[in-house]
């Protein structure tokens, strides 16, 4: 039990040693060490082989990676052949990545941020920020432990078990919810930032944005909107400084 808690805590640092060759591999092995010591405590050869497997290439969504650790620990305990455990880990990368990215990165995270921006626009201030942190981390940590336990329970059959769980349904809802809340938050947030601006100025900015968006969509710039904005701001600041020198 203690090993499980230690592994789950270590897994919060999964991506610290991220690199283009093994990606999250070393982080996975680091998190798995306490569990592997339990599985193969007597047999050094077995343990070394398991650690080497654990450190191989791995890359999934960091919030769902615990499922892969749970499943491979189960497979190691069941004495599955080495080749099969490696295939299990390789197979889990992509799908756990895709599910987690959809659930968190383009789902609950933008949805909660949209809500936070809305609450700020309605005057909630720093409380909205605190609420965001609590909600996001409660969700993230409960999925983190849930996924680990799913892996540990179902082993190589974890795919079917997750597919039959609440998760794909949540993924299907998370995307549209994120779209709706970000759509709702964007103009209201803008209005909040411009609340001390006269209406004429506000309309001018709104039309500027519309034109800029159309241009970007038209020619499909390689530059992000942030980079373009930075360029414009830098030009304006430089121009002002040069004017002072003249």
């Amino acid at each position, binding site marked *: 039990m203690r090993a499980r808690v230690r592994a789950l805590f270590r897994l*919060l*640092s999964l*991506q*610290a*040693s*991220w*690199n*283009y*060759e*093994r990606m999250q591999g*070393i*982080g996975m*092995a680091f998190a798995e*060490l306490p569990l592997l010591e339990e599985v193969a405590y007597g047999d050094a050869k077995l*343990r*070394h082989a398991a*650690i*080497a497997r654990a*450190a191989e290439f791995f890359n999934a969504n960091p*919030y769902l990676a615990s499922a892969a650790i749970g499943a491979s620990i189960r497979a190691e305990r069941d004495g599955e052949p080495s080749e099969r455990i490696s295939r299990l880990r390789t197979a889990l990368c992509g799908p756990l990545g895709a599910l987690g*990215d959809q659930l968190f*990165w*383009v789902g609950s995270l933008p949805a909660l*941020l949209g809500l936070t*921006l809305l609450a700020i626009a309605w005057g909630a201030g720093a409380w909205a*920020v605190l609420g*965001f*942190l609590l909600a*996001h981390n409660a969700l*993230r940590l409960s999925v983190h432990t849930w996924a680990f336990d799913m892996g540990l329970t179902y082993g190589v059959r974890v795919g079917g078990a997750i597919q039959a769980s609440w998760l794909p349904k949540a993924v299907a809802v998370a995307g*549209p919810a994120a779209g*709706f*809340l*970000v*759509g*709702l938050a*964007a*103009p*209201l*947030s803008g*209005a909040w*930032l*411009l609340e001390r601006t006269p209406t004429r*100025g506000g309309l*001018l*900015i709104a039309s500027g944005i519309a034109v*800029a*968006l159309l241009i970007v969509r038209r020619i499909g710039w390689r530059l*992000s*909107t*942030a*980079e373009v*904005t930075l360029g*414009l*701001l*830098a030009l*304006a*600041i430089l121009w*002002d*400084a040069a004017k002072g020198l003249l």
Partner: protein
Amino acid sequence: MIWTLWGYLAALVWGTAVGVDLVSFPQAMIARPVVAGTVAGWLLGDPLLGLRVGVVLELFALDVLPIGASRYPDYGPATVAAVAAGVGHPWEWALGVCTAVGLAMSLVGRWSLEQLRRRNALAAQAASAALSAGDAEVVRRLHLSALGRDAVRSLLLTGAGLLLARLLGAKIPEDPGFGQVLSWLAIGGAIAAVIGGAVRSAAHGRRLRWLLAGFAGSLILILLR
């Protein structure tokens, strides 16, 4: 401008913490600009400004899709620096310069992340025989030293950001007219970024319809107000 030693040190520590949070530990999302900015404003004695700067940079950050191994800007330490640049100025005309500092540092942050990953790769390559042999001690050492490396990266990045903030903070226009123009530019860019990003990631179907519904609802609420 309020540049007390304690405020500066607190901002440095906070910037380091949010820098490490982005990818390394514990990914609790304190690196989000709206969180990093609000806390930075509070630490530096200007919570109002911190919240505003946080929201503007959050709108830019929502345009970023951290999927797979793609490269992304690092907005955490950048937001701390952006808030520091504007401390003590009225937010209405400090926002432009703050945003410039934040966006510039987010790109420096992206570059620093790539350097970090390159170093991590070199360290892993050097130890690849030990990794294939399943040496637990090597795994531990590689991982924890990479974590330390990211802490150093975040500290240096925040330090550089605070320096830039100090330099550009002095450029915040005394005359509200020009400052206001810069702020409008920043806010306009931020709204364009969030809408562009939302449309791009919605792409087709149901999600796009919900996005448009939210958008329409928002406009109605603004007009009714």
